[in-house]
């Protein structure tokens, strides 16, 4: 872990259905800072704004107010196309459910981000294969998602997220659909990547157990940070 701040938010607000009777103030002035190589968990009860925060950080939703800096770039200043391009190169996403394209093989699912760049097919496929091998899926690169276990599917998703060597990987309940053993296996994988490659992780979770794998836990209640403290309990 270095001292370099890789992600920072300033006074982040998100209001849904603003100025309507159904208005929801999902995030209320969130300020966080994550250092390069840090593994951070975001915890909180359902509806507290965890996923909203993750979506804002990933640039797939816009804040109502406030700023987000990733690798020093204020992503709110970017156009939709620019933010998409930025996301491709700087942010890796891992979802809880249905996180793979069911009609693509493990290799094809992994290679997708590189296929959006000018990399040659052979180069891109070779790199993806290497990544899958590193994830222990060397013998399953041509399997479809429904031919893989839940843990294997999530490892494919991790491979895809890592492929572009992103500044940060955002995980939205990455083990939410997995049993305890597999969850441990995936989190150990995250830890190992974090340690070996100094990869930054920001993981949204309900589980104290999952949070325990991270360096620190940010707790949110009703859209506000109540604790941005040290390592989880």
């Amino acid at each position, binding site marked *: 872990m270095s001292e370099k701040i890789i992600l920072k938010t300033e006074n982040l607000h998100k209001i849904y259905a603003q100025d309507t009777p159904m208005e929801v103030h999902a995030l209320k002035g969130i300020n966080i800072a994550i250092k390069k190589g840090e593994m951070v968990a975001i915890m909180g009860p359902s509806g507290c704004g965890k996923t909203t925060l993750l979506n804002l950080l990933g640039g797939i*939703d816009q804040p109502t107010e406030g700023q987000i800096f990733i690798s020093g770039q204020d992503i709110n200043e970017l156009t939709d196309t620019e933010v998409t391009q930025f996301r491709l190169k700087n942010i890796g996403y891992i979802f809880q459910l249905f996180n793979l394209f069911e009609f693509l093989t493990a290799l094809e699912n992994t290679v997708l*981000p590189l*296929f959006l760049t000018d990399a040659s*097919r052979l180069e891109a496929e070779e790199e993806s294969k290497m990544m899958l091998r590193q994830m222990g899926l060397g013998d399953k690169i041509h399997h*479809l998602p429904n031919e893989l276990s839940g843990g294997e599917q999530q490892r494919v998703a991790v491979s895809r997220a890592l492929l572009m060597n992103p500044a940060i990987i955002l995980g939205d309940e990455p083990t939410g659909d997995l049993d305890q053993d597999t969850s441990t296996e995936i989190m150990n994988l995250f830890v190992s990547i974090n340690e070996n490659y100094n990869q930054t992780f920001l993981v949204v979770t309900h589980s104290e157990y999952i949070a325990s794998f991270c360096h620190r836990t940010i707790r949110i209640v009703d859209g506000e940070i109540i604790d941005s403290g040290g390592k989880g309990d």
Partner: protein
Amino acid sequence: MNYINNLIQKTFKRRIGKNVGTLIAIGLAVSLMVGVQITITSFATEALDFFVDVIGENDVIISSFTYPINTTTTIPVIENSGIDYAAFNIRITQQVALYNLEYGSLEKGVSFVGFELDEDPIFDNLYDQNGTTYRRSKLGDLFKNESHVLIGEDLAENLNATLGTTLKLRIGELNEAQFKFDFKTFDVKIVGLVAEEGKGKELGGWSIWTSIENMRSIIGFGDDECSEINIALSSDHENNPISNEDAKIVEEQLLELLVEAGEDLIVIAFRALILETADEVLKDVLLAFNLFGALIIFSGVLLLVNIQLIQVEDRVQQLGILRAIGSRRREIVRLFLVESFILGFLGSFLGIGGGYTMSIFLVDRIGKTFFDGEIALQPNVTAGAVGYSIALGLILAVGAGVFPAIRAAGVDVIEVIRGIKKTKRKKTGKLSLAIGLSLIVTGISVLVAQSFVYDSILTKAGWNTAIEQWVFMGGAGGILLGISVLFGYLFSRKIMGNGIGLTFIILSIFMLLLSLPQTKGMEDNNKILITLVVVLALGTIIWVGVNLNTVTNFFRGVLYRTRIKKGVSLIASKYMTSKTIRSTLTFGIFTLVLTMNIFASVYQATFAYNTLESVEFYSGGAPIYIELDSPIANETLVNVETELIEVDDSIEHVKGINSTLIIITSDEEVELDVPTNFFPGSVDLIYNNTFKNGDEYVFDFLFEQSLAQFNDKYKQAGSERYKLEYSHELWDFFYNRTKFNKDGYIDNENGMPTVISTTPILKPGDVFNITGIGFTTFPVIVLANIQQYPFSLSSMFPTLLITPTIDFFPRLNLHFGLYPSYMKFLVKTSEDFKEGRNTIITEKIETFFNGNESKLVLAEDFVAASANNVWEEMLQVVDFQVRTFDFLQYFVGFGLIVGAMGMVIIAMRNVAERRREIGMKRAIGYKKRQIIGTIMLELFILAGLGLIIGLINSIILGWAFARLYDWLLLVPPLRILLYTGIMIGIALIAAILPGIRASQVTPAEAIRYVG
């Protein structure tokens, strides 16, 4: 069960947007079906109505070919016949030419009708230009002067004539002593105009009218003589129709009674003849319409199944939950079928509206294509059609919903709840073993039965009709499909699918190459050809569908080499493969429509090119032919053969031909390719020097088919020189009057004389009777078909060539006495056949005969001459064919448009279904335009597949057809480009809306979306 009803209600409300999409898709598919049906019905009924209008209430005509009928002896035969007739009349009619000397205007083929002023109004009244009926007493006053006539309004206009104008006509006056007509010039004065209204208006419009007394006086008929008797069996055919069969019974009865009475007259069930002829003519057009229509309807069905499948797939989650909480499979089926029923019912109503709108355009186009815009056709929507549409919409919507419903019921709860898919068994079950075996047994039985019911397939005769070939296709198809299904049981479903697809493809190509050339007639030929279009299209759709993975891999490989991002190409191609059935249904629609459209354009181009290329050769060196309406009375005044050469420096040779009308009656035992056993024709009398100058052929000809013993040794692939020599040999044989028996073998003692047919209607080996005026009939046999003979373009009626040396000529010779001189001429010129001045020369020839300075006109011995440029005539024939095929493409084009609209809906529904996937893509880093690109690329590939398969199918079909007629295959590049453009346009339109919608999906919401 109540919860299912409840669920149906709730789902309908909640899924209103999606249901509207489905509803529109059903409406579009039903529109196609209804539109096709209304168009075909309208065409058939309106075209028949047109003929019925022409006929009036006239059922039976007794005629004598303008020669007198003795009313004193004939009328009592009718009155005492016991036939229940409504009324009859007597008339005298002659075809004349009318000349307005003042303006030099001439009109040919005008009926000069003499009628009884007190004839029964059943035969309709004459109306003046205001539509008011001419009173009989007024007509009596008008016709007091022998030269006074009424004239059809349009005819008068064409002649620049009006009330009071004097016109000249040439009419035959009976010379009873010499049994012939002497032609004389007669002046008539117009005293009234006849509006084209009322029944029989079309005949009335091109006529001049006088009283029968005046007519008798003009042409020398006695008081008890007429030339035709019209009999109406019903006074109101609309409300009290007479069947064709009943009319024909009356025809036979009258003929028998008249023969008994010693009256040798022609009796024709006129109404039945016209209606049956119209039916026959319509049959071919309707066959093409129906088959093309069936394919359009089939593409509508594909659209329906497609949309119904989407209904299931985007509700898999809901179905899984339903199954998990205890819903039985049949309840799920019921849920879908009830929904299908409701949507089908509502969609049918939409379809009626859409179909009617479509038919407005199509029916209007029919009027322009087939009737030169003269008839304003209206879509004909009957209560039956509405009922049919609703029933069809329901049957198809529910029918198309059965497969998806079964699929829905088969949803695996575990798969749905856990979001995984279990690996399925790839082989087919035991049921397929039974199906496969029974298909094979049935196929073999069909082939065996065919040999008993029809001719054996091991003989040539077993292949010469459409029904035999259909049965063979059924039998052979059954065996091959059975084997494919067995392969599915033994190996895999993919092998089965390949087997089924290849069965259709191989069978159609086999039939195209080996069987199609065996069919006897053009009609059978077309039936088989269109069947093969369907079979080939289906085969290719199935085959490509089964191998979609390989195909899309290929496309992906190609796309990877383009500038399109690989991520876009990968998703687009893989998504299609993952939805094999839906993708197959989608490109299937395009394949069907494009196979038809491109084939029609390939056929059109090939037909037009080859016909026009060959016309010079087949014209036999006579680029111009002339027909006269009556013979030149004073041949010492003008000798056409010598003087016409002086008309233009390019005219090299002119040869006259005697020609006369005859009646052809078919032998009951012989089936001719004609709608009736009784129809008019003409004979051209050919002398040995008609075609030849010494031993050299000046006007040449080519035989196409001849009696088996000549045909069998004929080398089809021989050079043109060989073919000409062979034809000359056959001609010499024909000229030397060898007789043949019914079986087509030489029999000089008891055989029949031979004739040569210039029309494919009367084929080699056909035996029939020909009748001249006042003579008993005699049988003849057709020796050969002449491939092209300039006059074959000139008449609707078949022409037979005879020589002066055949046995019956002395008897026909008297008949030629009615028209003693040449009625036709062949003209050879030195001009280039296509580019030369032949049109100018034809005008000069007409001026020679009919111009104000013509010797004939000045001597008032004018004849109405039509000089025709064969090339121009052929261009018109080809133009009509081209327009017909244009219409078929236009017809099918609607399928394409509606198919495309359906595609938009399907693609929109697709986007809704794929929201989560789109959200994931956005999260990964797909730009909006890449999302649009993915959706568009999918449709482009499917549309492109349809285009490529359609093109390949069309070329295979076109090639087989060209091979059949020894034609050069022509693939029209502009049309293909046009269709490519249309496909790109359709794919663009069909993809852009859903694409934009997809790009607007908010990723944050989409990735949480679970359907």
